C-alpha cells in the first residue's frame, strides 16, 4: 500500500535518487571541479551521468553512476540538470561524509534539491540549487580496442604525476611488454619513472598489470594528468589505456557495478 505522501512525491519529482554515502559524490566533485566549471548531470533510467570538456577542449570528463549503485533510484523521465560545480561544492560542504544524500528534481528543471541525512537520522538538512542552461556538445566516444592497457595503483599514478610535474610540462609515456615508462624533459633537466608488472598476489591493489597489443609511445600534458590524479581517492587502482594518435583514457572505477569516472586527454604532437 503506497502512502499518500509517497504518491505526492512520485508525482512532484521526475527524478529522485538516494546514495548511502555522500562521500562518493563529494570525491567525484573534487575530482572534476578544477577541470570543468559547469556541467549537465544527465539523469535517466540507467543512472546518473555527466560528460564535459574543459574550456580548452583538450580533455574530457565522463562519469557514470549506474542506477543499481544507488540505495533508491527513480526516474520517470530523463532530465538534464545544468549545475555550476563551484556552487554544488559549496552545498556538498554541508554534508557529512557518512550522511546519506538524496537528489531530487521536478520537471520544471529550474532547481535541484539536495537532502542530507545523518546516519543516526537525527539531523536532516535540505538545500535547493538553482539550475543553469548549459550548452554542451555531447561527444560520441567510440568503443575502442586500445593498443596498451596499464593498470596500476592510483597512489602510484598520483605520485608519478606530481613528481614529474615539477620537472616539465609534458610527459612521454611508453609502454612495452616489460614496462611502462614515464619520461619528462624540462628546462632544469630530465627524469623518468619506470614500472614493471608485478606479481604481488596477496595485495591486489598494489599490482601493476600491462596488457599489450602493440607498444605505444606518446606525449601528454602533465598539467592535465595532474588534474586527473585528483580522482585517486575514488579508487585504489587506475587504468590507463593508450593507442597511437588517439586520446589517452584514464579510468577510475567506483567498485563493483557502481560506475566509473573516465578522463580523456588529447595527445601532443612531437
Amino acid at each position, binding site marked *: 500500500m503506497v502512502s499518500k505522501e509517497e504518491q505526492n512525491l512520485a508525482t512532484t519529482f521526475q527524478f529522485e535518487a538516494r546514495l548511502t554515502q555522500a562521500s562518493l559524490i563529494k570525491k567525484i566533485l573534487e575530482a572534476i571541479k578544477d577541470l570543468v566549471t559547469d556541467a549537465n548531470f544527465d539523469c535517466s533510467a540507467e543512472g546518473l551521468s555527466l560528460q564535459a570538456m574543459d574550456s580548452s*577542449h583538450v580533455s574530457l570528463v565522463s562519469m557514470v553512476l549506474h542506477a543499481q549503485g544507488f540505495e533508491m533510484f527513480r526516474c520517470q523521465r530523463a532530465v538534464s540538470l545544468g549545475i555550476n560545480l563551484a556552487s554544488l561544492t559549496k552545498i556538498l560542504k554541508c554534508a557529512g561524509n557518512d550522511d546519506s544524500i538524496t537528489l531530487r528534481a521536478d520537471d520544471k528543471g529550474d532547481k535541484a534539491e539536495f537532502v542530507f541525512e545523518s546516519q543516526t537520522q537525527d539531523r536532516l538538512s535540505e538545500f535547493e540549487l538553482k539550475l543553469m542552461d548549459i550548452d554542451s556538445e555531447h*561527444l560520441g566516444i567510440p568503443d575502442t580496442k586500445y593498443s596498451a592497457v596499464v593498470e596500476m595503483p592510483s597512489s602510484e599514478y598520483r605520485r608519478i604525476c606530481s613528481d614529474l610535474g615539477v620537472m616539465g610540462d609534458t610527459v612521454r609515456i611508453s609502454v612495452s611488454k616489460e614496462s611502462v615508462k614515464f619520461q619528462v624533459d624540462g628546462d632544469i633537466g630530465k627524469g623518468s619513472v619506470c614500472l614493471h608488472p608485478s606479481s604481488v598476489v596477496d595485495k591486489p591493489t598494489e599490482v601493476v598489470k600491462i596488457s599489450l597489443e602493440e607498444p605505444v609511445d606518446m606525449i601528454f600534458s602533465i598539467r592535465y594528468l595532474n588534474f586527473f590524479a585528483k580522482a585517486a581517492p575514488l579508487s585504489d587502482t587506475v587504468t590507463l589505456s593508450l593507442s597511437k594518435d588517439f586520446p589517452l583514457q584514464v579510468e577510475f572505477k567506483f567498485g563493483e557495478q557502481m560506475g566509473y569516472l573516465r578522463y580523456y586527454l588529447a595527445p601532443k604532437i612531437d
Partner: protein
Amino acid sequence: MVVHRAAPKRQKPESTDIRKKRTTVHPNQTKKKQEIGDLEDLKYLLRENKNNQWLTVEKEISRFQQSLLQWYEKNQRKLPWRYTCMEGQPNPYHVWVSETMLQQTKVATVIEYYKNWLQTFPDITSLAESSLERVNEIWAGLGYYRRAKLLYEGAQTVVSKFGGKIPDDVNLLQSIPGIGPYTAAAIASIAFNRPYAVCDGNVFRVLSRLFCIDLDISSTEGQNLFKNLAQFLLSKERAADYNQAMMELGATVCTPKNFDCEKCPVQSWCSSFQSSTQRQFPVKANRVRQNNEEIQVYLIDYADHFLMLKNVSRNLLGNLWHFPFVTLKRNGNCIPEDEKLSYERYLFRILHSCGYPLKEVDRSQRSLFDSFVPIGQIEHLFTHIKQTIHVKLVHLSTEIQLHLEETAKRMDGGNEESTEYKWFTEEQVEKSAISRQMKKVMELYQRQKKQQVLNLFF
C-alpha cells in the same frame, strides 16, 4: 624668510575652522573655495592639532628638512636615473623619461624599460626623429601607451619649439604635450633644482600622515591643500634632493600598508605616528569598482601568419596592434548579439578582402566562428578592468589564395577607412608594438601549439 617666500600671506578668511568652511561654501563663493589650502589654512589646520605647532616655527621646518635630507643621502635606492649627468647637471631628458615611465608603474618594472629606452633613444633628437611605431615597440609591455605617444610628441615639440633644449620653467614645461603640473615640477626641481614641490601619490600619503589630514586626496580642495603644504615644507635650496627624498620616503618607508615607522627620519614630527592612526591616512573617496570583462580573441592563422588589426580608437591601448576580438560580457552582462554579429561581419569583410571566398562567408557566417577551436583562456589585469580572454584558433585553408602582399592596404570605403590590418608572423608579434595582453595570447598559443584537441577525435 623661507616661509614667506613660499606662500605670500593672504587676507585671512572670516572663518577660522577649516571644516566649517568646507561645508558652507556657497555657489557664489567659489573664489573662497580656491583659497582653501593657502598658507592661512595650513596654519589653522595645524593649530587645531597641538602637536603640529612646529610648522609655524621656521627652525623646526629646517630641522625637518635636514633630517629628511640626511636620511635620503644614506638610504636612497640606487636607480639608473639617479646617476645621469649632463655637464654636471642631471640630464633633464632622463628625468623626463623616468618620471613619465614611473607614473602608475612600479620601479622594478621601469628599470629595464628605462635602460632599453635610453639605448634606443639616447637623446631628445633621436626620439623626435623616430616613428610612433618604433616608440610603441620599445614601450610595449609597460602599459598606459598614451604616455609613450605623448613623450614622443613632447620630444618633437622640444626640438621644434625649444631647439632641442628642455626648458627649466614650469610654465614653459607645461606647454609641452604630456607634461602636466607633476612632471613639470619634477623636471624643474630634479633636473634644474628649481624650488617647485613635486606632489605624487607618495607625497600625498606622507603629508596626510604627518598632519593627520582627513581631506580626500582626490578632491580638488584636498589636492590644493597638499600642494600648498608640500610647497611650504620644500627645502628651496635643495629642491631636487628634497623632492626625491619625500617620494623615496613614501615609496620605501611610509608605504600604504606595511609602513615602517621605526625607520622614519621624520617620525617625531608625525601626528599620525603619535596617535597611531597611520592606517587611517590618506583618506580616499571610494574608487570606481573594478570592471570585469570577458573577451573572445580570434587567432586567425594563414601559412604561419596571424591576422592583426590596428586599434585606431583613442581609448584603451590605442594605436597598438591586436588580434581580432569581440567583447562577450561586461560586468557579467552579455553584450547584445547584434554588436557581436556586426563585428563578425566586419571581420569577414577583412578576410574576404584578403581573398577568403565570399560564398563560404555567406553560407555559414555564424557557424564558421563557432567552429573555431578554443585553445584556452587567460586572465589579464588592467588597472580598472579584469579581463578574461578566451582564445579561439582558426587555420585558414591554404587553398585559399590570400593576397598577403596587400597586407598594409587600408580597408576600402565605409567608416572603417582608417582601419588597418596586417598579417604577422610569430616573430613579428613578439617584436612589434603589441600590448602585454595580446602577447599573452601568443604565448598561450605557443604553449598549446602541439596540443591537439579532443574534437579532432570524437
